[in-house]
């Protein structure tokens, strides 16, 4: 059973346990001693089941069970045991003697156990990971207060002053919640040598101004402006670089210097250019509030970087990116010689409810021609691609070539938000069709359009291709280890309390900044406790996938810039800290990033003079 299913099963067991305890209390209060006794037995059984689901969750990773083990499990255990000891004998003798059995000494402990069960049900939704000391105090105080109120309503009850220690406990918990303000996470490595706010400014970490020997300068002028696009016969309001959606495609040969002058005509919220997956110098990264200020209407910014990485990449605005990218501020970046034959870049983007494949019409491809399709997911959710009519190879992921990719047929390729897949095949005599999420996307060759395939299994890219030597691996000794537990819960997002997307219980900008030093070998573990997929994206570095759910990647080395951490999954990845700067590290479901799921990774000795950026 997957961890995501275990989470659901555990919540169901918790609901039944809470309902069992409350039901027993209500039945006792309603003078049905026999029914109360039966419900008590059910509650005990379900509570024991719930212990096993919590233990099973812990085997998927401590993070999935932490709140159950340190808080809600013991709380229900203690309250349940007290209820059994206090209410059990009274209900038994009531059944034997035929009396009602509705004394407060029986009813109140049962209801308190029910409140403890309800706390266990609500905690994962409202707070999530981790359960801190403050959370423990507040939760126990709330259950205690509800118990005291019940006791007073049910009968005599304790005097009013007994609320005071409960109130004090709750206030202490709330206070503790505010007090814990760590702003740096050194990941087990040495702390900062440089005081905050001192060191090299990211604004000075700029790209070279000349190409490599033999390379040339590729100059582009981009003006971001409001425009309209035609989607499935409708005219849709959009924002585009040079009024185009996608923006002008950027192509270059390895060693060229790419220089893009960005102007903003009328995008009131501002724009930038972020080179997704391209490890540019920090000052060129286009992260507003971190590496530059957003370009306002009338403003300008010049980006320069060397085209050193060959492969398929893309660019997009990083200012109010949730809205900006959705509206059309993106385009493709392809470096290297075009593949022989047909070489098509296929950005996929969703406008409203229409998913559009960037290449229009039916490209010419005679039988026997080599074809390379560069699939780019510019949306915030994954897309599923199928290719019918031919066998093919997945030759590159996120721009990096795979080692020994085997021939594929009748599989589904699931491309994370922000990710790229390059697929290659030789054009057969018949037509070839690319489907996106089961809808027709692109067709090559002539003949009847084949129907969308159904039920094809998904390709597991962590087992695809053949292994090869990597500069480091799962056994390496890491200088720093970071853990990111992704969840939902109430947290401050830019000072506003929200039902946020959280990292280790916090939301941007309150997530401690990860600190590294140049040259460090860094491992990052990302665990997803929520029921949403989180495409994780670290700027400025590609990461090597080490493990998923404790199982090592066994195929080709996978160097990714965006990896999909699905519900209940745990990914362990690693990278060499070789690109000094201050970098965004965030969920590329940009709506999630805007609602808190983002943090910074800073090199010791680097500072940013920019402020006011947000998660998206």
């Amino acid at each position, binding site marked *: 059973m*997957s961890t*995501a*299913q275990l*989470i*659901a*099963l555990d*919540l*169901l067991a918790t*609901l039944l346990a809470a*309902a069992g305890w*409350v039901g027993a209390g*209500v039945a006792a*209060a*309603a003078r049905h001693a026999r029914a109360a006794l039966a419900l008590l037995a059910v509650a005990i059984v379900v509570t024991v089941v719930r212990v096993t689901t919590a233990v099973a969750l812990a085997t998927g990773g401590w993070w999935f069970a932490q709140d159950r083990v340190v808080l809600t499990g013991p709380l229900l255990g203690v309250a349940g045991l007290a209820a059994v000891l206090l209410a059990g004998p009274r209900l038994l003798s009531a059944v034997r003697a035929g009396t009602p059995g509705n004394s407060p000494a029986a009813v109140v402990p049962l209801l308190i156990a029910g409140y403890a069960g*309800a706390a266990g*049900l*609500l905690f994962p*939704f409202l707070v999530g990971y981790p359960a801190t000391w403050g959370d423990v105090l507040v939760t126990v105080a709330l259950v205690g207060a509800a118990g005291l*109120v*019940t006791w007073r*309503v*049910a009968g005599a009850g304790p005097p009013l002053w007994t609320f005071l220690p409960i109130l004090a406990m709750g206030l202490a918990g709330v206070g503790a919640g505010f007090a814990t303000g760590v702003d740096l996470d050194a990941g087990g490595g040495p702390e900062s040598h440089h005081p905050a706010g001192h060191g090299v400014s990211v604004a000075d970490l700029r790209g070279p101004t000349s190409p490599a020997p033999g390379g040339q300068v590729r100059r582009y002028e981009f003006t971001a402006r409001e425009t309209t696009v035609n989607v499935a016969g409708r005219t849709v309001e959009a924002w585009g670089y040079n009024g185009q959606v996608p923006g002008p495609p950027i192509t270059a040969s390895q060693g060229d210097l790419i220089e893009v002058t960005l102007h903003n005509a009328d995008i009131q919220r501002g724009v930038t250019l972020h080179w997704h997956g391209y490890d540019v110098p920090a000052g060129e990264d286009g992260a507003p509030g971190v590496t530059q200020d957003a370009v306002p209407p009338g403003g300008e910014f010049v980006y320069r970087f060397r085209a050193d990485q060959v492969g398929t990449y893309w660019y997009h605005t990083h200012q109010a990116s949730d809205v900006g990218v959705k509206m059309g501020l993106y385009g493709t970046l392809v470096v290297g010689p075009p593949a022989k034959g047909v070489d098509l870049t296929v950005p996929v983007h969703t*406008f*409203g*409810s*229409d998913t559009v494949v960037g290449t229009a019409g039916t490209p010419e491809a005679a039988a026997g021609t080599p074809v390379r399709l560069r699939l780019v997911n510019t949306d915030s*959710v*994954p897309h599923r691609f199928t290719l019918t009519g031919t066998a093919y190879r997945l030759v590159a992921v996120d721009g990096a070539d795979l080692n020994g990719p085997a021939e594929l047929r009748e599989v589904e390729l699931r491309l994370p938000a922000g990710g790229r897949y390059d697929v290659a095949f030789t054009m057969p005599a018949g037509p070839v069709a690319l489907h996106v999420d089961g809808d027709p996307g692109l067709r090559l060759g002539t003949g009847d359009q084949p129907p969308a395939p159904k039920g094809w299994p998904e390709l597991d890219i962590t087992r695809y291709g053949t292994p090869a030597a990597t500069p480091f691996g799962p056994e390496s000794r890491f200088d720093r280890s970071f853990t990111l537990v992704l969840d939902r819960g109430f947290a401050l997002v830019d000072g506003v309390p929200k*039902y946020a997307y959280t990292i280790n219980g916090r939301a941007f900008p309150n997530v401690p900044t990860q600190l590294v030093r140049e040259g460090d070998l860094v491992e990052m573990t990302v665990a997803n406790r929520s*029921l*949403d*997929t989180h495409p994780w994206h670290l700027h400025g570095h590609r990461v090597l996938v080490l493990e998923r759910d404790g199982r090592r990647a066994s195929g080709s080395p996978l160097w990714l810039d965006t990896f999909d951490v*699905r*519900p209940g999954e745990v990914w362990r990845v690693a990278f060499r800290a070789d690109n000094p700067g201050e970098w965004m590290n965030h969920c590329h479901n940009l*709506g999630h990033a805007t609602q808190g799921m983002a943090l910074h990774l800073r090199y010791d000795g680097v500072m940013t003079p920019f402020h006011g950026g947000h998660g998206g």
Partner: protein
Amino acid sequence: MRRVFVVLSGLLFLAILAQFYFAAVGAFDRPQDDDSFALHSIVGMMVIPLLSILATVSAALARAPGRLIGLSLAPLGLVVVQVLIIVVGNAISGGSDEDTGAAGLFVFGLHAVNALLVMGAAGAVLRRARAFAAEKTTVDTPQPTVSPAA
């Protein structure tokens, strides 16, 4: 305090009516995206639970019978079930971004059935809160004293 209990129960009932309305708004919103059900989420996750807790507190302060206090918590308990239906449906489908299968849809459909139970519970709370308030009026109204015949 009994009047406060009646008013809060009434607001709770109205919030649940609005919740049905927002569910339809979300279902027919085009294009369908994360924001389609924003109002439905806010009312369901914040407004209804808060009103339910406030109604329960006012019932306790008004010294309503324990059974009525318990009943006023029922909408909250059923709203938790509403959220859980979504969670279980998503878990069966493999996550909120995945296509739904028959089993997932079977579970998701229960969201509408349970919604009727939430409304029924809130209706019962309102009816009994009013009866409880009326009871108070009869008790509190000074009875005309009958002076013994001289």
